[in-house]
């Protein structure tokens, strides 16, 4: 290829990366990885037109480009803003960005039921991750939350509109993946809802993918509902020869039992290869599948917190963000305190090994450390 395009240099939180022209700020940040990647609740790489709605990925553009280094006046949605050559972006290094993001998280949660203990999505919910990483510990919202009735959208999918954060991802799936649009958004404002017109079922070979793209527990798999918590299941990669789709899935096993199958997600929780309804809902035996091995878990998730074999940690970016300088600490406790150089047995106080091993009559200052024989001997003296 002779027509090599000039790469754009973009600096995100003091880390410079070269990307193709036309890349968004979010994708440039994802090429760097680690803490500096803005969270994204509505953006989905494979869905055209998605993004820009949830406003969690807001970043500050401190310099528009090398040619025009003026900063952008407002915070911009990094998922829908393309990089320019010489752009300087501030994400976690800018307090106003963090403040705005905190505000968005709080606003996203005011109408969310927070019913995580009974929600099937708990453990792999992007809203849980988001509020844990960027939210505040409590809400200032004191009013009734908006609620909707649950709807069964056909035999496989259930809609809990109450949990929805209106990211529109499922609408784009119905628009772009399946061959007819069957659902959309009705009404407007905080009472708008994802719905099928007159409660029709979602009837399409690929409509099950709306479950995978849903960042929260609004669209759930009826064949998996209340069967198990995701952190008790073990994900394995598997495939089968499917006439409709590529048949590459992640199976979620408990013992030998297939509890559910989902499309494979990358480290940003996004599906690149959609799967059909047959693979997702109907093939629930291990004999239907050729199992490849444990799924790589490379996102923080409750599954990764257990003794799971296949975990890859994201890149550590903190020292790069700080310009090569280690994080500023109040004091380096290892140098200042010298706590590691002390022989514990020399400290008057709680019993140490010596108390028991070397001198059976050793006398410690701690009254509870007195040994029985000693007490007895004292008693005898009296």
């Amino acid at each position, binding site marked *: 290829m002779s027509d090599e395009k000039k790469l754009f240099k973009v600096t995100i939180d003091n880390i410079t990366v070269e990307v193709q022209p036309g890349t968004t700020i979010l994708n440039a940040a994802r090429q760097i990885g680690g803490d500096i990647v803005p969270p994204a609740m509505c953006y989905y790489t494979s869905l055209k037109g998605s993004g*820009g709605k949830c406003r969690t990925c807001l970043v500050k553009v401190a310099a528009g480009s090398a040619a025009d280094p003026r900063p952008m006046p407002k915070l911009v949605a990094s998922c829908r803003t393309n990089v320019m050559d010489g752009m300087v972006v501030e994400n976690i290094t800018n307090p106003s960005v963090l403040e705005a993001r905190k505000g968005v998280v709080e606003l996203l949660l005011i*109408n969310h039921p927070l019913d995580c203990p009974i929600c099937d999505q708990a453990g792999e919910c992007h809203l849980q991750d988001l509020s844990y990483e960027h939210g505040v510990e409590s809400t200032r*919202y004191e009013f009734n939350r908006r609620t909707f009735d649950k709807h069964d959208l056909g035999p496989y999918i259930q809609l809990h509109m109450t949990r929805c954060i*209106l990211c529109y991802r499922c609408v784009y799936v119905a628009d772009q993946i399946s061959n007819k649009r069957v659902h959309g*958004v009705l009404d*407007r404002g905080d009472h708008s809802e994802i719905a099928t017109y007159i409660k029709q079922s979602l009837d399409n070979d690929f409509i099950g993918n709306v479950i995978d793209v849903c960042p929260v527990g609004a669209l759930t798999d009826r064949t998996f509902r209340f069967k198990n918590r995701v952190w008790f299941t073990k994900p394995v990669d598997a495939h089968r020869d499917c006439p409709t789709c590529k048949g590459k899935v992640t199976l979620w096993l408990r013992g030998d039992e297939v509890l559910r199958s989902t499309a494979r997600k990358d480290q940003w929780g996004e599906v690149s290869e959609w799967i059909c309804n047959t693979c997702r809902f109907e093939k629930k035996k291990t004999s239907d599948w050729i199992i490849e091995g444990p799924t790589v878990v490379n996102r923080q998730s409750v599954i990764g917190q257990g003794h799971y074999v296949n975990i890859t940690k994201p890149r550590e970016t903190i020292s790069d963000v700080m310009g090569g300088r280690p994080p500023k600490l109040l004091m380096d406790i290892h140098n200042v305190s010298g706590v590691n150089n002390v022989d514990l047995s020399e400290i008057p106080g709680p019993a140490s090994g010596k108390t028991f091993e070397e001198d059976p009559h050793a006398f410690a200052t701690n009254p509870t450390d007195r040994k029985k024989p000693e007490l007895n001997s004292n008693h005898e003296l009296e």
Partner: protein
Amino acid sequence: MGRKILIDKVHIEGIRFFDTYRKNGGYASLEKALKISPAEVVEEVKKSGLRGRGGAGFPTGLKWSFLAKPEGIQRYLVVNADESEPGTFKDRYLMEFIPHLLIEGMIVSSYALGANTAYIYIRGEYAWIIDILQKAIDEAKEQSFLGKNILGSGYDCEIFIHRGAGAYICGEETALLESLEGKRGNPRIKPPFPAVKGLWDCPTVVNNVETIAAVVPIINEGGDEYALIGIGKSTGTKLISACGNIKKPGVYEIDMTISVEEFIYSDEYCGGIPNGRRLKACIPGGSSVPILPANLLLKTAKGETRLMNYESLADGGFQSGSMMGSGGFIVLDEDQCIVRHTYTLARFYRHESCGQCSPCREGTGWMEKILLNIERGKGKMSDIDLLWDIQSKIEGNTICPLGDAAAWPVAAAIRHFRDEFEWHVQNPEECLRRNYGLAGYAEPLEAVIS
């Protein structure tokens, strides 16, 4: 007496119809424009210094010159007649009484932009105006001022009317385009701007009714002549729709050199406050712009007389100023309750938020609920700070300006009338029976500062 150039002929009987309009100098600007090149028409508009009358006040000539002009791709002119801002009704007046002025302005503007199709996106509630406009279009077509080969110049132009379905958000230009395309009226994420990718992905200019109507006198008299009217960068005349506690509500054309005080109290305009009441506050540019207390409205923070124009109303930023906006001039007298007023606006914005992006969707509802609590005497002191915090989280973080429009009135009400909010919280029973009244708002500014 201010100079009138837009609605000077409104009182002529039958001006709504083509014959009378033509006899009174109508369509002269079209004849004049067709003799010069489109670029020269744009140049005239640039020279005139005309600023968008829809609210933002962006220079129209500049907007037109941003229009992308790729070969072989259709361009569109869209007229924003979705006038839904509470307190604004100037476009309705123009379209209802002198519809040919808009049609004439649209043909001239389309010619200048090289567009062969123009749309009027009109608010659905203006049902009878649609008939008036349609009749005007039909008349113009009969006389070959519209349609194929206009006046033998070889230029074709068609105008279509599209009716909105009652959503305030469709007054935002990209939501308007979505709605015009037959989709849900959600604002688009910018960039790309409509000038590059607008209606059906073609370059599009979206202008307010009054802006397009103002093109007619600009071409008739010349851009330089038009620029002489007014003051500074606020050239030309502006329609102000005055309402609220004034003796003579209605649409007034001003030349932007008169003071706010004169506008409210002179008999030529609003005629003062009725029933011997005194002025408490005013929203000078439609419900979205910050409210100002009487003392800051009549005089700027520097002590200068505030004039009815873009710069003077915005003097002092949002700390002590407001905006010209769309010219919806809402006057509140001493009997009005600011908390109730702010609640009404918050309820409006909650109802009209499209629900696309989260800060506006959730934040507007939250603000409304808190304001209702304070209004009903169930509020807490911390609620006022909370309101302030919520509005700051919405402002600037949304896709379209509706989030800002919802945040600004709340912010301004707390900034200028915090004592009234506190009084509501401290006197939960009294606030149900009576209003806070005038307090210090009408005192001269010096007295308040010292």
